[in-house]
């Protein structure tokens, strides 16, 4: 499989009356976009706004972040199985509006939505302060039940990214990244002496605002499944806006999965990267045993010498993470875990909800309960008051002057467990 990401660098974004990209400037056709998204009868109103790095702007409550792209060679534009007809992804060429992102906000669906600050203190804590953000505010039709409400905002965001992506259709790439990998046998023949590595990406699969989707299939309904890394980079996996803002894997982070990219980077040099296993994090004990056994079995069947496992969320999935680790290490497969911690405001509590002696190599992406103080914004896109009900906020955490105190829990992508961000924890 060979996939080219043809990146066109977005230096600025403006609102206008047609979708276009020229001289590094992305113009968003506001009325066209609004009209297209309002095609969905469950969408009552759409508002579009912009937030650029350095602007004293706060975006809240953020549900998902999506990278606008367009497929220019090969099949499968948009998000096949979700917003477009099903196609096999992973091959061809994609024009990427690199540096731009669609950020969805709107009436709160659940507690798992978050904040993005574009400047100063807050900007340090989220990777999405560095992107040029097109903020899509989705006001749903009256009386939607929560699950339909979630589906509506999820689809609106994906559709917006797809429509904006068309602006790059004829753009000339500033940089081309090629992702090419043959079958496991071919690669192993090429690199017979390199250790074989599998990436296990856990997806939370636990209901409203807690599901991931693979080609449109809810991850709740799958056995652990292997996919080619190119498929995920090409848009096969999307966020169901899962779990706390700090460690939900947004769609943008699936499209640019840092664990996949960093493994690809070492492929053929230090390791032989075999592929990705998507593993659902289920709520039942039987489900956990089934998926953890199955995941370890797949790794073993593939002949993995080493595995990187990334978690999504915290609490009960900590058990899945460590159960997978225990099984892999018992089979002699070297395992590195990426997780985050709930060590409390003071950092004095034990970090995980489970423990196993086999977990000897763990990367920590930060303490979700680490409290940050964010100064008042000049402009709030969305509703600043939402912070009181989000995971990581509390009643009274927003001051009258607009400054607020919250846990990293509420900051989008802060403690990304696919290792997308650069936080860690040190013992003092």
């Amino acid at each position, binding site marked *: 499989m060979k996939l080219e990401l043809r990146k066109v660098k977005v230096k600025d974004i403006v609102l206008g009356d047609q979708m276009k990209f020229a001289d590094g400037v992305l113009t968003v056709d506001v009325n066209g976009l609004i009209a297209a998204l309002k095609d969905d009868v469950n969408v009552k109103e759409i508002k579009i706004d912009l937030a650029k790095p350095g602007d004293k702007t706060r975006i809240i409550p953020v549900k998902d972040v999506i990278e606008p792209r367009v497929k220019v060679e090969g099949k499968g534009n948009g998000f096949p199985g979700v917003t477009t007809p099903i196609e096999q992804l992973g091959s061809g060429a994609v024009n990427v509006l690199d540096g731009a992102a669609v950020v969805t906000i709107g009436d709160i669906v659940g*507690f798992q939505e978050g904040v993005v600050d574009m400047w100063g203190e807050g900007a340090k804590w989220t990777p999405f302060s560095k992107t040029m953000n097109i903020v899509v505010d989705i006001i749903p039709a009256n009386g939607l039940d929560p699950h339909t409400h979630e589906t509506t905002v999820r689809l609106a965001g994906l559709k917006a990214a797809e429509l904006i992506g068309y602006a790059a259709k004829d753009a000339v790439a500033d940089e081309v990244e090629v992702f090419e990998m043959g079958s496991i046998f071919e690669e192993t023949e090429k690199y017979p002496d390199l250790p074989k590595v599998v990436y296990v990406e856990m997806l939370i699969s636990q209901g409203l605002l807690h599901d991931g989707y693979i080609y449109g299939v809810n991850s709740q309904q799958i056995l652990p499944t292997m996919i080619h890394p190119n498929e995920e980079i090409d848009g096969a996996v999307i966020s169901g806006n899962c779990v706390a803002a700090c460690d939900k894997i947004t769609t943008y982070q699936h499209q640019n999965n840092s664990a996949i990219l960093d493994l690809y980077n070492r492929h053929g040099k230090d390791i032989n990267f075999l592929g990705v296993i998507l593993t659902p994090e289920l709520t039942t004990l039987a489900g956990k045993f089934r998926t953890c056994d199955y995941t370890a079995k797949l790794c073993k069947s593939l002949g993995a010498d080493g595995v990187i496992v990334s978690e999504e969320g915290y*609490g009960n999935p900590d058990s899945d993470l460590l159960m997978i680790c225990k099984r892999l290490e018992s089979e002699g497969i*070297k395992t590195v875990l990426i997780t985050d911690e709930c060590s409390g*405001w003071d950092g004095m509590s034990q970090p995980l909800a489970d423990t196993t002696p086999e977990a000897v190599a*763990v990367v920590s992406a930060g303490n979700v309960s680490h409290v940050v103080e964010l100064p008042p914004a000049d402009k709030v896109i969305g509703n600043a008051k939402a912070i009181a009900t989000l995971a990581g906020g509390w009643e009274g955490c927003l001051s009258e002057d607009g400054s607020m105190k919250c846990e990293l829990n509420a900051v989008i992508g802060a403690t990304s467990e696919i290792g997308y961000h*650069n936080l860690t924890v040190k*013992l003092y």
Partner: protein
Amino acid sequence: MSYKILYYVNQFFGQVGGEEQAGIAPFYKEEKIGPAMGFEQLLKGEAQVVGTIVCGDNYFNENTEESLKFIYDTIAAVKPDMVVAGPAFNAGRYGMACAGVANAVIDKLGIPVVTGMYHENPGVDQCKAKAIIAEVTDSAAGMRTALPVMAKIALKLLKKEELGTPKEEGYIAQGKRLTVFADKRGSERAVEMLIARFKGEEFETELPMPVFDKVAPAAAIKDLSKAKIALVTSGGIVPIGNPDRIQSASAQKWGKYNVSDISELTGGYYTIHGGYDPVYANEVPDRVAPLDMLKKFEKEGLIGEVYEYFYTTTGTGTSVGNAIQFGKEIGKELKEAGVDGVILTST
């Protein structure tokens, strides 16, 4: 301005005598006694030791209150910016005394304390969370290496400079897990850690596995039909409107609500828990906290009575430290109310 340090040593390092003098009561001298002398030289004039308290180890451990009162009085007179105690090396009673001094001075007066101990000294666990304990050797032969470490830490704390990691500074970890920025993103660190493992190179986990407490179960209830049963949940079920503003994740508090007049939670309650799909819990909150069944059992005589209060908090992301505190507080109330058993539900 030169900072003022009050020094604390035991009878041995206070040059009073050995074991036979371990029972002496504390006294204070405006002098640098024992390690205080070498310690002050290392401060390079940026701080001075204004005096030394000498106290017998046995005396301190057997008459802690009197000893501490003497220390408080001395501090009130001397007004030091910091108290330095030890190093106690692996001397257990001396370590316990240094820890006792440290905890009291920090808790009551808010004055920072630096001490030094061997990592196995029983005093370490007593005060490491509050004081900074330089990690020193197990015997006084290590005095020469211990004092520079303690002096460097003391100066940093006095000047309000940020202390580095335990490894960098040479102190025993306090157990605080602080979020900091790394040079590389997490995924790159993970790949590098895996490659290091393949190559047999040294690597360091960023998250050593936690050690869990084990709680012995209480004895079984002999006669359920006479038992008072309470309902407690971490499922975030609260009265509609969430009157106590319990957090949807990382709870900082718990709530209790009188349920003596209702036969189920449905209708008046919902969930504010941010860790699961709330739709079905909101339809029937008894699915998470089964008050309906308990009331039914009470009516049928299967259980004696349902305790009048229902206790609740949010489990998701809640630190174990907070959970222990909630457990103790709720447990105490239930015990005092004569509750025999608890149905404790999680999600």
